[in-house]
């Protein structure tokens, strides 16, 4: 049985947590006062959190993943006139980019213009591995990708052999990444949605 081993691990775990808390105290010694106060106040919660299993995983080549859901965060300079073009395109679509549905693994996606229209922040939440996800973009919506990203400095074209390097080079991996339902892929969510609809219809009929 694992009881003995479990106990040892728990003791080790506790001293590891105390060690981490000590490190945090040192780290926050030169923080603003409200940060130091927050640390002391948050200690009970923090103890639990520090003791919990590690949640950080990698999405593959670059980016963070929690469970089945990964993050992609890119910050890329605009080409000359690119911000104006992309804004006009998004406005014509009323900000809603339904092409995202065709990718099939995309949870959410945002386009944010930074630093007086000189850079684009492109951030998504998606299912699984980085390489497979980028491949989905390449095979399913290549034209939409070129239409959007041709407005960025140095975009080699979606069919170029260096397109993955371009994306990876401009991606910044998140230091922390949280997902409320880490086990729900887009496909699984769709299945549950259909199930919920069927259950509602069934209940309406028997009511």
């Amino acid at each position, binding site marked *: 049985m694992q009881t003995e081993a479990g106990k040892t691990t728990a003791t080790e775990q506790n001293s590891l947590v105390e060690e981490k808390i000590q490190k945090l105290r040192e780290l926050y010694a030169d923080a603003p006062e*409200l940060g130091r106060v927050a640390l002391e106040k948050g200690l009970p919660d923090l103890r639990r959190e520090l003791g919990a299993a590690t949640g950080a995983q990698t999405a593959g080549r670059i980016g963070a993943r929690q469970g089945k859901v990964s993050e992609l965060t890119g910050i890329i300079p605009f080409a000359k006139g690119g911000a104006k073009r*992309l804004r*006009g395109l998004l406005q014509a*679509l009323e900000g809603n980019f339904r092409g995202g549905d065709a990718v099939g693994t995309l949870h959410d996606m945002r386009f944010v213009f930074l630093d007086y229209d000189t850079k684009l*922040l492109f951030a998504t939440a998606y299912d699984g591995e980085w390489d497979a996800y980028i491949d989905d973009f390449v095979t399913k919506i290549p034209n939409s990708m070129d239409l959007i990203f041709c407005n960025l400095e140095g975009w080699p*074209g979606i069919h170029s052999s260096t397109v993955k390097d371009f994306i990876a080079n401009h991606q910044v991996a998140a*230091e922390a990444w949280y997902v409320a*339902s880490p086990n*729900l892929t887009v496909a699984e969510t769709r299945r549950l*949605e259909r199930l919920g609809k069927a259950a509602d219809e069934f209940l309406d009929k028997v009511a």
Partner: protein
Amino acid sequence: MPPEVRKNPPDKDQNAEKKIQQVRELFADAPDLGKKALENVLKELTSQVSAPPPPIESAGRVGARLGKRSELTIIVPLVPGGAKRLRTFLQLLGGNLSPGATKVGTLHDMRFVFFDNDTRMLFATSFDGDWDVYIDDFIALIPDYLDLMDSAWEGWPGIRSPGAKDYLVKHQITAEGWFVADPDLTLAEIERLKRLGKAADEFLDKVA
């Protein structure tokens, strides 16, 4: 009954043509591959522009919303030493933010990203509904976590300060494009569906 054939009213078609024309003009000086891509997607684009899905709306004070789902994108300058403190803090948590974050029952996803040589930080979330209600949840449910994180932010007044919301608004940048796969699913609705899915699986196991 036969399915109703829906045709766009003429003014809607005209409106779509006008928009397409605008996009063509906009891309007149785009790189070649952009112009080519435009012609390739134009057919698809015509149908999307003429029968658009619900447009993005405002999440309230600031931010974009699609259906029931909103986005928050905040970019702040970090105080000297702030990135180091915050990074070590996040590393010690092992990237696991769940115990605090799950208390906010409207938060779908959240990321912390350092950039520009650790002088700036991006804090981006996806959440349900209205900005003010969401921020109030953060303030009421996890104030100390917020101060721990945000004490690395230049000029942060403290979560209990009356100026906290103004600070957030000032540093938030509304997204110009926002896509959500399931704009009608709140977190509460997803939890309900998860329970239903589990019950259905158990039921099917039993009758099998």
